[in-house]
């Protein structure tokens, strides 16, 4: 069963990569058209750079956690998660605020401000999703769940709020109808869905090998695995 879930990981992320490549190819074809229609659109190369930077900082986050604090997801999930999201969040905000809609009406700092609101509301929604998928809500595991949802929010909601603000039509078009236009919107949607689906697979109930400490079922799987999955999801997309 564990092998199976690894298989899922591989399958899913391979699929996602392929999909992304396909989209990048399409985008290259559409490039000229897009650049004329949306002024601040960036090229596919730019999108890749953004991914690389965010991915790099995720790696930096893990390095900091591992070497400076010498904890990891299994020994102290809540501290690790807190460090990770607080390192990742500024980067995501700084980068994505550059791509905000209507830059002439909305200043850079306003974009930063609204992404902070987005962080909190996104964390709330992610926490609701996690809890409904049986994340523990006892007093001991509450910090873990909270920090996990902040991290997920950084991947899913923060870029979107930085770019779109509170524009319902944009949100609806991009997230619900899955009809993103332009590279920026792809840049938002793919990691967000990658994180969500990765998280979902990570939360897969795996009541196996419970003799081993790193696999204590219902407490950490809901957090630890989920998070690993979502991060893998994110970093691979």
């Amino acid at each position: 069963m564990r092998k199976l879930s690894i298989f899922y990981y591989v399958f899913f992320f391979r699929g996602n990569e392929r999909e992304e490549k396909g989209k990048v190819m399409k985008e290259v074809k559409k490039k000229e058209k897009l650049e004329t229609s949306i002024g601040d659109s960036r090229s596919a190369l730019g999108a890749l750079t953004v991914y690389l930077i965010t991915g790099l900082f995720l790696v930096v986050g893990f390095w900091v956690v591992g070497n400076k604090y010498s904890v990891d997801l299994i020994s102290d999930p809540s501290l690790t998660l807190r460090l990770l999201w607080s390192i990742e969040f500024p980067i995501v905000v700084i980068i994505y605020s550059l791509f905000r809609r209507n830059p002439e009406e909305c200043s850079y700092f306003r974009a930063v401000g609204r992404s902070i609101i987005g962080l909190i509301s996104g964390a709330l929604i992610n926490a609701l999703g996690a809890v409904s998928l049986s994340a523990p809500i006892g007093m001991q595991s509450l910090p873990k769940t909270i920090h996990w949802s902040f991290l997920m929010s950084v991947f899913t909601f923060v870029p979107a709020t930085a770019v779109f603000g509170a524009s319902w039509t944009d949100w609806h078009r991009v997230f619900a109808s899955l009809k993103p236009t332009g590279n920026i919107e792809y840049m938002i949607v793919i990691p967000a869905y990658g994180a969500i689906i990765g998280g979902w697979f990570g939360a897969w109930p795996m009541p196996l090998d419970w003799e081993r400490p790193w696999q204590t079922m219902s407490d950490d799987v809901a957090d630890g695995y989920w998070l690993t999955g979502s991060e893998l999801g994110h970093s691979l997309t």
Partner: protein
Amino acid sequence: MTTAMTCTRLTLFTVAGIFIQIIGLSIFVFGFFPVKPTLSGVSGSESYRDPFCDPSSNLNESELHHPEKLRLLYQELSGISSKYDRLILMVIDGLPAEFVLGKDGQPPWKVWKESMPYTQSLLANGDAIGYHAKAAPPTVTMPRLKAMVSGAIGGFLDVAFNFNTQALLDDNLLGQFFRIGWKMVMLGDETWLKLFPGLFMRHDGVSSFFVKDTVQVDRNVSRHLPNELNSDDWNLLILHYLGLDHVGHTGGRNSPLMAGKLKEMDDIVRTMHLKAMMDRSHDQGQTLLIVVSDHGMTENGNHGGSSYEETDSLMLFIGLSSNISDYTAATNNVAFQVDLAPTLALLFGVPIPKNNVGVLVPGTLNSLRDYEQLRALELNSWQLLRLMQAQMPSSLFEGFSCNCFVDGTCEGLSLDISECSGDKEKQLICLFRNAAVLHGIWKSKKLTESSSAMEDFSRALNAYNTFLKTASEWLASKTTEKPVLLLGVGVSAMLLSCFVYVTLFLSLFKEFYHEPKDRVCNLSYRLKLEEVFIFALLLILVISMGSSSMVEEEHYIWHFMVSTLHLLLLFKTAKSFNFSKGMNYKIGSIFSLLICGRLLRGWHQGGVNWTYLPDISKWLEQAGSGYIKWIQLISNFLVIFLGLFPLFRTGSKKKSVRILAFGFSTCGFLVLLHAGIYQDDMFEVSNEYGATVTVKVIYLLLSTCAIGAAVVLPWFMLNKEKSFLAEAGDCLYLIGSEYILCWCLLQLLLQQPINSGAILLLLIQILAISCLSSNGLQVNEWVEIAALYYMGMTGHFALGNSNTLATIDVAGAFIGISSHSTILSGILMFMITYASPLLFLLCLVMYIGAKLRNHSHSTISTHRETSLGQILKLKLGFPCLVPLCINSILLTAYTVVLLLMRNHLFVWSVFSPKYLYVCATTLCTYIGVCIVAITVTYTFFVTTFLRSNRTTRHNIS
């Protein structure tokens, strides 16, 4: 019309599918769970004679009803002097032999050894001899007790009836002892009392219901001990201590309580050894003390399976006066648990039970004289040979005749010793012949005082032992081997029915979603996300059944998948969300689905390995019974309110509805009354007269309301303004909601008080989903029905059920039953266990009604020209087929899994109980679908009849 399936054909195929499945399932069950071959009757004096002699020869046993005469007769016939006249059988539930005897020649761990100083000293002095007695799986108390006293290995189905212990009717030791007039006393686990009702002169049974109690169960036994040891009126004293098993269940082998418990057991052994055995003067005869355990336990204290830790049970003889001086010789012995029966029978001079497959424990006979030892072995061999005769063709026994070995007159059999080879059955007979011949030789030589007697004796002894060992193994394997043909037929029948269902479903699916028939049915139909997910869920479930821990923790996967399904629905709704009105209902309903689902998930920490984690029910129990009372009260009121709500929402101010509502309110009040007055103790169901009468009144009222309403309502729902479908829809909606309310009230009465909150949450989920579907969820009908089925299964685990038989609520099965009735309490137990799946299946009636009403509101009477059969097919096809289809796929898949896992370590403890649950789920699906189909068909027929009546009357006037 050739491709389209008519209603009649659909019904016929479905019913045929059900029948094929039932037949296949029963064939498989009888093939897989062996029913042991048994000889009927009880061993009597004929067991002391050669099996080839005419059984109805000389003695007339009817004269020997006097116990004392019978005892003397047995003693005379057996030719073995019995020096013991009293037996103390101390059963320590769940004690692994490793704790006392160590493992692999090593002494036990220091903690264990130091906790039992007296027993260890007995072993070291040679006063005791211990055996690792291998118990046969399933290692659960009742089958093991049966094995010990009857020597027979039972089938798995014994475990299934573990919660309903019935008197042991097969030949057994206790019955034999009773027949020769022994006085017996039993203290401890009341399983003994259920197995042997009326056999004990004095008894004090304790229930093993409270697994948390590790002190009181044992104190209850020990408090009688001083009196019993002082009194001289018993021959057999049985002590069954449950505490150690309870310690194991709560804390595992290394529980901190374990050492104290072992010390307590050791003290009891010391008391008994000093008082009962040493103090008695020699002229009174001797007492034999036997300490046995029924099974062992795993590292974390569970049992039921077939691992070494679980099957390693103890058999310790104290006071055998066999000359053993060596500690290793006293501890490093191996036997089988069933060997206890023949050993005790021969030691105490009673016939060996008829179906015994055990053999004499070697080393217990050392104190006997030579001829007695051989006689004992001969008696054991004769008994096994009788059992073999029942299972072998009689042609193999040709040439044997009465006493021919003694007289040397066996026809066609040379009296030479030969090497035994060939197939197993011939080999067995050959071994027996060798032993018998050698015994004969020894006897004849003994008369002539030959010098080589000693050598002949050991040869005969070895020959007997070889025969006994081989025969015992052969007989034991006979009870567990599986007939391949039956299994094959069963599985293929199930596959066939599964295929039938899937085909039916697909053909209906094609017809339903490709309405214009001139268009060619192609497979270009694109599955939506949630439809893919329904299939994926089925696949995931099938795959996860292959892993034992996934089976144990099945509730996780159900909850995870159903929550994901809800989230997908939320996503779908959000997709079409715009800030107009009416949508808020949908979002709200989905959120209430999610919240209720999460609460239900936390209600019971189900499964097997994580039950100690906190959950809502534990939390409430710790908070005090006052809170539970409040929850019970609130959920009772809310259930009545929510259940009556759809009744009044249909807007009909008819008298019949009001009468119904009144009936239900009365029921609800009575249920509340019962909960308030009689259910004071959490677990104890009071047996007062008043409570029973109240419950019976509730049963009567509820069944009258449910059946009466379903029968009467269609006749009174006439409404001239509405179309045919709307009318039938109204009626079905009412009947459905009334079914649900009825079922919920029944469950509030039957379930443990803590579960009343869960029942309320399930009801809210049902109402939420019916609200969703009537507001247009844009999800196909079959997806909704499949979702309902899945939610029912999730609720099943939320009510505290799991895939072990231990979680079945036995206490609730006796509510309102004044006399013991297996069938009635079985039905109640089924109702309690399958509360949630049946609730969701019953809700299909309401669902169909709501659909019909909705449908007829939007498009008024489009189906006017279609026949009744067509309507029935369209409306009833999916609600019946989808649950049947899902269930048959799961059943067939699990059957295959069980076949593949037949040699798995956990086949008895995990896979087989799960299979019983799967079978019961199948039954539950049949019942639910039947009720739905009958109700809907009946309503449609009545409505059509009334309509046609009205039109004819209209035409005439």
